[in-house]
């Protein structure tokens, strides 16, 4: 009898919590997905999951894609719909996840422009900006498969509603802000792009003064995935183009094995006959005024570069 009472009381206490798990998860995810803050990753995910990113030309890459390649300029020049899927701070491993999720909700694009750089084939250990996955990751097999190898989420976070929000105070504050403040429709990134109107930040000078150098280690699993992706593009008859967007020329010297990485891209592009547009020696790279740090063009630089790229791609189409 005592046990029966105990079980009934315990269930009465926990059942409201269990019943609320899914609706609360939905509400939190909904309000978090309303975020239009830096770096705008959630907006891109929303466009993907709401099938609003249909395009003929898809731009993939990191921040060196989303801050450098303006889809509007490419659209005007190529007369094709363009969307920039550049993913802040992440390498090819998670860029591929975005590709998979994009294909779940959209038709295959005709062309993929892949912005490659020294970091593309590296893999971070921690799940940088993990909050971008929170609204979409519950019971999502692709997100689980591609994010679980990072230090970030626990296994239960992918399966149990609400649990992944525990302790994510920054995201919870954003949710409260989105729920209780007037919502603005203005987006941070447009079709995935934003030219950053920033001044040179002197990080490069600090690194140079401290004699900082970088040795980039290519991740073996990413290399396999990279070649599989190339094969997948061939199988689906999707045109794949490599683009190495401009880098400040002095900054290139900080990477001790840069030539090795560049030669890898050249070898792959020759092996699979992939056009490779390398702008790392372009005249833009010589002038700091087009950059806000050694790896990123500012708004002015991005606009000039996007026109150059559009013109080169147009010339190629004509040929």
């Amino acid at each position, binding site marked *: 009898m*005592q*046990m029966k*009472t*105990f079980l009934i*009381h*315990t269930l009465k*206490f926990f059942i409201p*919590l269990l019943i609320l798990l899914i609706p609360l998860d939905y509400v939190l995810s909904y309000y978090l997905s309303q975020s239009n803050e830096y770096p705008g990753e959630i907006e891109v995910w929303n466009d993907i999951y709401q099938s609003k990113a249909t395009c003929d030309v898809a731009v993939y890459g990191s921040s060196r894609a989303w801050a450098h390649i303006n889809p509007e300029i490419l659209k005007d020049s190529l007369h094709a719909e363009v969307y920039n899927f550049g993913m802040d701070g992440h390498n090819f491993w998670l860029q591929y996840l975005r590709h998979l999720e994009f294909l779940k909700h959209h038709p295959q694009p005709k062309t993929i422009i892949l912005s490659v750089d020294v970091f593309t084939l590296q893999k971070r250990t921690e799940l940088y900006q993990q909050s971008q996955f929170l609204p979409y990751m519950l019971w999502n097999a692709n997100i689980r498969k591609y994010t679980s190898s990072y230090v970030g989420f*626990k296994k*239960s976070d992918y399966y*149990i509603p*609400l*649990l992944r*929000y*525990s*302790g*994510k*105070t920054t995201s*919870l504050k954003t949710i409260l802000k989105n729920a209780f403040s007037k919502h603005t429709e203005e987006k941070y990134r447009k079709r995935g792009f934003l030219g950053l109107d920033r001044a040179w930040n002197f990080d490069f000078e600090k690194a140079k003064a401290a004699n900082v150098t970088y040795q980039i280690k290519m991740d073996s699993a990413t290399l396999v995935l990279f070649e599989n992706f190339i094969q997948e593009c061939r199988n689906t008859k999707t045109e794949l183009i490599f683009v190495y967007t401009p880098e400040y020329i002095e900054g290139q010297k900080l990477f001790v094995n840069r030539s090795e990485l560049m030669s890898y891209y050249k070898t792959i592009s020759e092996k699979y006959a992939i056009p490779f547009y390398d702008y790392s020696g372009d005249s833009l790279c010589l002038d700091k005024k087009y950059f806000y740090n050694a790896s990123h063009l500012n708004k002015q630089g991005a606009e000039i570069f996007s026109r150059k790229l559009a013109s080169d791609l147009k010339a190629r189409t004509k040929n």
Partner: protein
Amino acid sequence: MLFNSIDFAIFLPIVFLLYWFVTKGNLKLQNTLLLFSSYFFYACWDWRFLFLLIFSTLLDYFTGIKMSDAKSASSKKFWFWLSVSVNLGFLGVFKYYNFFAESFASALENLGLQINPWTLNLILPVGISFYTFHGLSYVIDIYKDRIKAEKNFIDYAVFVSFFPLLVAGPIERATHLLPQIQKRRTFDYAKAVDGLKQILWGLFKKIVIADNCAEFANLIFNHSDDYSGSTLLLGALFFSIQIYGDFSGYSDIAIGTAKLFGIELLRNFAFPCFSRDIAEFWRRWHISLSSWFRDYLYIPLGGSKGGTWMKIRNTFIIFIVSGFWHGANWTFIVWGALNAVYFLPLLLHNKNRNHLDVVAAGKLVPTAKEFFSMLLTFLMTVFAWIFFRAENIQHAMSYISDLFSGLASKSSYVETMNLIRWQIGYGIPLVIVLFFSLEWLGRENQYAISQLGKTWKRPMRHALYYALIFAIFWFGGKEQQFIYFQF
């Protein structure tokens, strides 16, 4: 399997339901289930060390019987020392070997002799200090004829391995726990509800208080060279609150879990932060270990009976050994010695048993004298915790030196305020204040919320528990290891 993990949240209800529904009150089945569940729980950490636990259990079980059956004193002595030396031998190899090898090499280096110490790359088996002490108390009690040897292996093995206390205590006594294991347990509604409440409070202490304090304590201790005066004081305060929340939270979860199975474990904490002197603090902090050392080391050494020098010697021995029990590092030894220094004046002036009651019992606020003695005692413990938390003695000394030299500088306070404003925020300090307020209000009970809301209507009471669950959700997710698991 951590107490604050999803794995444990699945494991516990399964064992609970099997225990009460499948065994149907059959004592043999109840104990067998508890033993296998405990071994499964332990194997989840590292299954290889399960063999060590079983070996240690078998050793004490057989030596216990041999001692009970011994025909002569010398035979009894032989089995006793065999058990003690093997138990301490394991502890010595796994926990202290590298420390002694390195300390010996460094002592020789000071004499101009260079040797490369042969160190072992060993993982410390989780809970070894706790279950070794369980076993030791058992064989000592048999040797001293305080108890008879347990003939039922399952019962004895449950005494050593009962999963709530297996990895970090409370350190049980055969006289207290074995009789409960030998007796058929029937379900007690009030005890089970009390257990659930204590688990909830323990989770709150661990996840909300300790884990969040740990973030800032780690930040400040790991970069102590970058900080000064008041920020270092803040770091020491955070660590003091962390270790209290962490270990007392763990103990609450362990005791609460045991209650669900109808078993009462020894109390481990009795609101030590409200102690009026250091002697009271040690009666309220990690009670099961303090009383273990009192009964099995301090009293056999003569306790406080002999002359002044004997009292001083015994006090230093017990505190230093207690410090050393925590880990193979000079920092723990200094922490122990410092507590002995705090304690000695009280002992020598016969003031060590001045405060046996609960401070300001029946009153809402303490007197000014009580308040200042609590504050002074708390600050003394905060100072000692610096040694406990520091990486090594040099780190502790530089931490203390920077702390005191910086306290006079205004820039240090600006630095602290900026750290609070930009990194710590006001949420956690506010929650800590609320936590200590609840602790103060509930200080006359077993744990802070045990009586809170007992007269309230159920929805109100549940609202309080939901609020605690909400706090765990909001402030959780830090996933810090329990500090005492490393001991």
